[in-house]
């Protein structure tokens, strides 16, 4: 649904007399399949917004190519515009307009007739549970309500692909959970959803596949599960009485294992599969068992391995 090759963009910014070139995006390849929620995870300044703005036809790439929903970004940006929706990071509503007015205008800018635009507006207002405030000025909305209006504006014309730039930043946990549901609903309606985020849990829970971006480059791509498995697999820590450690190590010698004073650590592909086997092996060897813990690597571990920094710190 989205395919990019070697997308690049640099900005020249002036600081006093000096000109500085910022290479915001340096050669991005992406393949997003139809009907998936694709996540772009990266710290501030990674180049997520710049990439999205290029794909949304707002800025022209310096180099590279992209096909979006079958339309060529460089050759036919007009057709790309018709097929996509885009929700900017900073919002897009006007204080003195109401949600309904904004939605009707947006639908009409996409070519809908007046009656069609009104019907569409009513439908998405309903879908995003905004009907109660639809005729109030946008400046009176809460942050979460306003963000929902932004997203409703991005999908009012039922695009094939929608780009959501940090849809949940600044929302409280409950509104975030709601927003995740809304986004899953868009996928259920057949849309391909491309979101950016710097929340690890969001990338993990919401996205079918992600690309991790740092410093203008993609450092890893895949499903969250695969990415985590790829770096280290799961760790199972078995807590034991001190005198049982040696026996346990003997019983589990088919695993990659490290022994400690009061425990052993096993490095396994998939902890959920390994734990019953481990228990059986220990049981068979009559090793008394204390505790058992499963540690699954987080996306932060992935980020750390790929960039040498923790996403939480950067």
């Amino acid at each position: 649904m989205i395919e990019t090759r070697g997308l690049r963009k640099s900005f020249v910014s002036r600081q006093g007399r000096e000109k500085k070139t910022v290479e915001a995006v340096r050669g991005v390849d992406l393949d997003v399949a139809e009907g998936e929620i694709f996540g772009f995870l990266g710290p501030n300044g990674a180049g997520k917004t710049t990439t999205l703005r290029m794909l949304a036809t707002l800025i022209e790439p310096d180099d590279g190519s992209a096909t979006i929903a079958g339309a060529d970004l460089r050759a036919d940006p007009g057709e790309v515009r018709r097929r996509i929706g885009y929700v900017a990071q900073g919002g897009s509503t006007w204080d003195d307009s109401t949600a309904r007015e904004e939605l009707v205008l947006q639908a009409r800018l996409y070519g809908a007739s007046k009656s069609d635009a009104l019907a569409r507006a009513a439908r998405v207002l309903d879908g995003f549970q905004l009907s109660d405030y639809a005729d109030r000025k946008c400046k009176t909305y809460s942050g979460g309500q306003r963000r929902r209006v932004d997203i409703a504006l991005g999908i009012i014309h039922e695009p094939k692909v929608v780009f959501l730039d940090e849809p949940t930043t600044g929302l409280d946990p409950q509104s975030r959970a709601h927003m995740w549901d809304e986004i899953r609903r868009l996928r259920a309606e057949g849309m391909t959803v491309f979101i950016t985020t710097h929340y690890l849990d969001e990338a993990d829970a919401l996205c079918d596949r992600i690309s991790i971006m740092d410093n203008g480059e993609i450092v890893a791509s895949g499903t969250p599960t695969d990415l985590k498995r790829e770096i280290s697999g799961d760790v199972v820590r078995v807590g034991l009485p001190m005198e049982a450690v040696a026996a346990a190590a003997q019983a589990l010698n088919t695993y990659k294992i490290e022994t400690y004073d009061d425990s052993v650590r096993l490095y396994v592909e998939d902890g959920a599969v390994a734990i019953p086997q481990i228990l059986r092996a220990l049981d068979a060897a009559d090793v008394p068992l204390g505790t058992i813990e499963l540690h699954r690597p987080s996306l932060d571990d992935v980020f750390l391995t790929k960039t040498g920094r923790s996403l939480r710190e950067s």
Partner: protein
Amino acid sequence: MKLLRDTSLIFNRQMQLLLRNPVWILVGVFQPVMYLLLFAPLLKPALQVQSNAAAYEIFVPGLLVLLAIFGGLFQGFGLIAELRAGVIERSRVTPVSRLALLLGRSLRDVVSLIAQAVIITLLALLFDLRVFIGDLLLAYLMLALISLMTSAVSYGVALAVKSEDALAPLMNTVAQPVLLLSGILLPLTYAPGWLQGIADYNPFSWAVNGTRALFRGDLGAPDVWQGLLIMAVLAVLAVAWSARMFARSVR
């Protein structure tokens, strides 16, 4: 036609928002009305004319042109607010015509200017100004062209600089000499030759002369068509340039 349809969509929205706070139109005419009430009475002796009506014939057109220039040049501020709110970016991802994004806004500015011009003209009628309706409509056309041009320029510059802090001094720097060198407030009849020479290169000076001729009832004066033609050409150029700014990347 798509351009027409898109332009009317943008125009209608902008008008709707303007009419939601019509007080801004009144705020806009406040200053010129003050000039009309407090400054114009000094003019009869200064201009050495016979009657108040004759003084107003010279002063009112200048005042209207002034209003058109300044009213237009400062429209960019509203656009910067829209840029900041993300409204422009939201429009730019749709297939809407980029020219319509500009024209819809500039036409609103033209309409609000003409509304202000009507208020001022009506007030001036109370002071014995007399002007034929046909001439007046042509004068309004001149004002419309001026305001179309200045507001388009202002939008283009606003898109280029993207900040109020840069726009304000820029517009003032442009507007002040234009104002002083056009004989807008007082005709340059008594000005020294070099000043008149400079004014000949100021397009607004031609516009003012044309508008004054219309208020005099001198429809046949070359000033009229020359002024209209110069303003029309400049308005087209300004609109073309500014529409390109809308099409280019923003932010």
